[in-house]
């Protein structure tokens, strides 16, 4: 092959554009646009049905290993950020650009040039046409009343082949609606792209009194972190409650520390973020920030001793003697529950503070416990201390367990211990009598002659507890005794350079939609020609949308003309 031949074989520029043109046409076609919209809609459905960005182990459990790997490979667990979903959006942007590139020059030209004369065949195809036959008279006499009636219309006139054409337009700028809407969509998508590429959004947890400068966020299936150029200190966090116990307001008092200097201190609440150096700081969540917890360890070895333990939430308390560990997972200062029976008026009660811990030990099954500080009061009656216990370790499977005794009263614990000892020593042949006797003796052991006033209720609880407490497999029962509460405030920090772009696109979108949907381009032609020894006037009109309204408008114009035309019919008889 010679070089000459090779040159001939090479695609020329013109050929290249010839090849590109159909591609461009395809990309800008409506069919592609509608298919894209449909595919986007369908793809979006998947992401709403499949919960996004959950724990990987949850997915594995839910779908089994095979489907888990299939879904994972398709990126369905973080679908809206997968390459294929983003390319769909990219395609939409491309399609929009091509669509604009193809149509905007044409529309602009169309809006600029308006051909005044109109062919007879075009008139024939119009639905709204009316003719008047008038006597011969000067043109001006016909035109001036028409112009008078059509004051709100843009009118141009032209004469061709002895025929006078008047063209009136209303809403001829409506194609701007199309241009605005489509460029607005493009702008919004560009804004979104800017947000993703140049912005960030992540969370930080700041315990009260502490400071923090790192945020963490999910990217795909892994957690990433990012260091902020400043520190955030949480001075205070508080929750306001409605009388029914629902939270009313979450408030954090924050100080921004930039370059070692305190630059700004402010309160933030939900819906009212703080703004510093292009970063918005939102109140997002809260939780326990490591409260200090005091336990009473009610020993079950028969001695009746009460030990104490102290630990912070999120740490583990280890008891060297018994090998028991308590892993503190959460603390709540209030537990508001609806105590009413089903179908009864609601009755909210605060059950008081509680701590969650997992108890482990040699020869013990691990157990998750929520221990409440206060005894359970029902209808004014003390039903003793209770706890929620979950043997599976899952907080969802918490089951209430009454201990019978009111553990907040050490005397009652002592009484219970004495009762057990006295009971063991009594004659087991007459259990009822033995109970009474043992209790009386135990009372004397603990209180001597000064019986407390409410000893009957105490007796009930002690006898109840005998059925429960000795059966517990633990060396002691850790009961929440006291606490120094400390919250952490959950903040979300975000920077979004694309946001204002999105807002301007949105404004343009709404503006464009209103023009596009509410402004119709209405055209009227008035054709005046000499015919049948007189003059024939033709009125014709079309509208690009809303034919129902235009028909009405056309009729109104017709009626307004009728009067003038009636006069002109007579001709100039004077």
């Amino acid at each position, binding site marked *: 092959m010679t070089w000459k031949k090779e040159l001939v074989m090479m695609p020329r520029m013109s050929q290249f554009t010839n090849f590109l043109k159909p591609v461009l046409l395809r990309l800008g076609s*409506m069919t592609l*646009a*509608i298919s894209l*919209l*449909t595919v*986007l*809609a369908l793809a*979006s*459905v998947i*992401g*709403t*049905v499949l*919960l*996004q960005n959950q724990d990987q182990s949850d997915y594995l459990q839910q779908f089994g290993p095979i489907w888990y790997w299939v879904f994972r490979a398709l990126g369905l667990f973080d679908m*809206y950020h997968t390459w294929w979903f983003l390319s769909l959006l990219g395609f939409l942007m491309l399609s929009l650009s091509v669509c604009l590139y193809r149509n905007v020059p044409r529309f602009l030209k169309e809006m600029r040039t308006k051909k005044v004369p109109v062919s007879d065949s075009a008139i024939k195809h119009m639905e709204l046409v009316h003719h008047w036959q008038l006597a011969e008279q000067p043109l001006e006499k016909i035109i001036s009343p028409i112009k008078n009636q059509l004051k709100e219309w843009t009118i141009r006139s032209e004469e061709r082949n002895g025929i006078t054409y008047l063209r009136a337009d209303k809403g001829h700028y409506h194609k701007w609606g199309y241009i605005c809407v489509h460029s607005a969509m493009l702008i919004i998508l560009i804004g*979104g792209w800017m*947000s993703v590429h140049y912005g960030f*959004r992540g969370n930080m947890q700041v315990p009260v009194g502490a400071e923090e400068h790192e945020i963490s966020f999910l990217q795909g299936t892994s957690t990433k972190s990012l260091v902020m150029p400043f520190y955030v200190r949480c001075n205070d966090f508080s929750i306001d409650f*409605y*009388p*029914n116990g*629902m*939270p*009313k*307001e*979450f408030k954090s008092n924050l100080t921004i520390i930039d370059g070692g200097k305190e630059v700004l201190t402010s309160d933030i*609440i*939900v*819906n*009212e*973020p703080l703004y510093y150096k292009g970063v*918005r700081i*939102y109140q*997002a969540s809260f939780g326990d920030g490591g409260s200090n917890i005091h336990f009473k360890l009610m020993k079950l070895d028969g001695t009746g001793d009460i030990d104490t333990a102290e630990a912070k939430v999120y740490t583990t308390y280890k008891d060297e003697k018994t090998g028991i560990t308590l892993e503190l997972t959460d603390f709540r200062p209030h537990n508001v529950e609806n105590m009413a029976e089903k179908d009864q*008026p*609601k*009755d909210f009660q605060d059950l008081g503070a509680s701590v969650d811990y997992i108890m482990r030990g040699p020869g013990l099954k691990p157990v998750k416990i929520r221990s409440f500080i206060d005894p359970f009061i029902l209808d004014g009656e003390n039903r003793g201390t209770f706890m929620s216990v979950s043997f599976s370790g899952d907080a969802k499977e918490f089951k209430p367990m009454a201990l019978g005794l009111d553990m907040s009263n050490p005397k009652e614990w002592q009484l219970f211990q004495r009762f057990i000892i006295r009971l063991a020593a009594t004659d087991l042949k007459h259990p009822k009598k033995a109970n009474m006797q043992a209790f009386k003796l135990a009372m004397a052991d603990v209180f001597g002659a000064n019986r407390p006033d409410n000893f009957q209720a105490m007796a009930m609880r002690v006898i109840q507890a005998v059925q429960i407490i000795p059966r517990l497999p633990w060396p002691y029962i850790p009961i929440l005794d006291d606490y120094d509460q400390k919250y952490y405030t959950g903040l*979300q*920090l*975000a920077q*979004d350079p694309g*946001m204002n772009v*999105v*807002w301007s696109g*949105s404004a343009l*979108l*709404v503006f464009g*939609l*209103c023009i*596009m*949907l*509410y402004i119709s381009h209405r055209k009227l032609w008035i054709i005046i020609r000499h015919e049948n020894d007189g003059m024939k006037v033709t009125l014709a009109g079309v509208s690009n*949308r*809303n*034919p*129902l309204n235009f*028909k*009405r408008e056309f*009729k109104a114009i017709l009626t307004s003309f009728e009067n003038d035309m009636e006069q002109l019919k007579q001709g100039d008889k004077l």
Partner: protein
Amino acid sequence: MNVNVESTGMISQLYQGRPAFVRYWGYIGLILGAVGLALFGGDGYTENGYIFQLVGKDGFMWLGTGALMGSGLSIAYQTMRPVTKDSWIPQTMVPWFDVAAFMIILMAIFTLFEPTAEQVSYEDQSSLFAAHVIMTMNVLFIFSSVSYIAYLFAPESFIGKLATWTAWAGVYAGGSALLLRWYESYLFMDGEIGHAPVSNIYEVFILLFCIITIIYLQWEKRYDAKAMGAFVMVLVAAGVFFAIWLESVGQAEIKPLVPALQSYWMKIHVPMNFVGYGSFAVACGAGMAYLTRMWLETRDSKMVKVFPSLEQLDQLAYKSVAVGFPAFTLATILGAAWAAEAWGGYWSWDPKETWALIVWLTYGAYLHVRISHGWHGKTLAWWTVIGFLVTVFCFLGVNMYLAGLHSYGHLS
């Protein structure tokens, strides 16, 4: 096709020419007075404080002055420069202002029937009066839809009027009941939980009924499309039964607002969204009427005569979408603005957001094929029906089946 019949009674005089003009500026003055009160009245704007000011002496002074000044100035203007031609803005706006004013008056009357503060508590809201008004609304809407259906079989003008009037009465009952609930939310817990009545699914349902009915009644008035009412009002009636069920499971109670909802955006975003949903429902009604008429035509049924023409129904469906689509777009944008303020990002691919996008894409595609491809008729009628199903899922299904940030509309 009927062109509006101009009546010349005493009442219609109020909506034309000079009375309409003066009343329009009176209302504008009233609104400006309310704005002035918010900006300059009292010391600093707080939402609850403002509401109490509005209904108190301050409100009376500011709003009254505004209304008097507005109407006074317009009378002066009219005497100086008499306007010969009616301008359309007062003529269009005044009836709407009247509807709002009438609802507020009704609500004020209803407050007289409210039990005393000792008889109501947060735990027991059964004695509140709004429940009765809502029940009346339910009955009216169901009656109206039955009448519209009866009208298809017996197109007597009496039945038609009855259907229209009960529908209007239902709108007034619903609107005033919502306002009454706003008032009632201040009755207990020392007024601490007072909030606009668009905070839970039960309240927005009532709003939705009213919006659907109002949009439909506009089409009926302007385009004489009475047969369409049977289809639109049946949707409303179905919704009414759902709302009755909601009430029976305790979803109708006035509850405090969670912190995320305590924002002025709620009052803008939610009603705007329901203008969108409501018009899509009306479009669906028109689409169903279209399909029914087509079916009746194949069977040479006599009932066809009652229906508007296919072209008209097609147009009405489009018109409804044309009302709903910009409203829905704006509502979604407002929602994004709120999300940017409350959650730190304007778009989080939350199920509700995503489904709003799906709805938007559905109707966006509808407008594309209609405007650019010139599609008409049967396919588009089906499109409006299916589009509405998608809308219903976005509005209800998401709350029922999918968890997410919008879970305060959650059904238990």
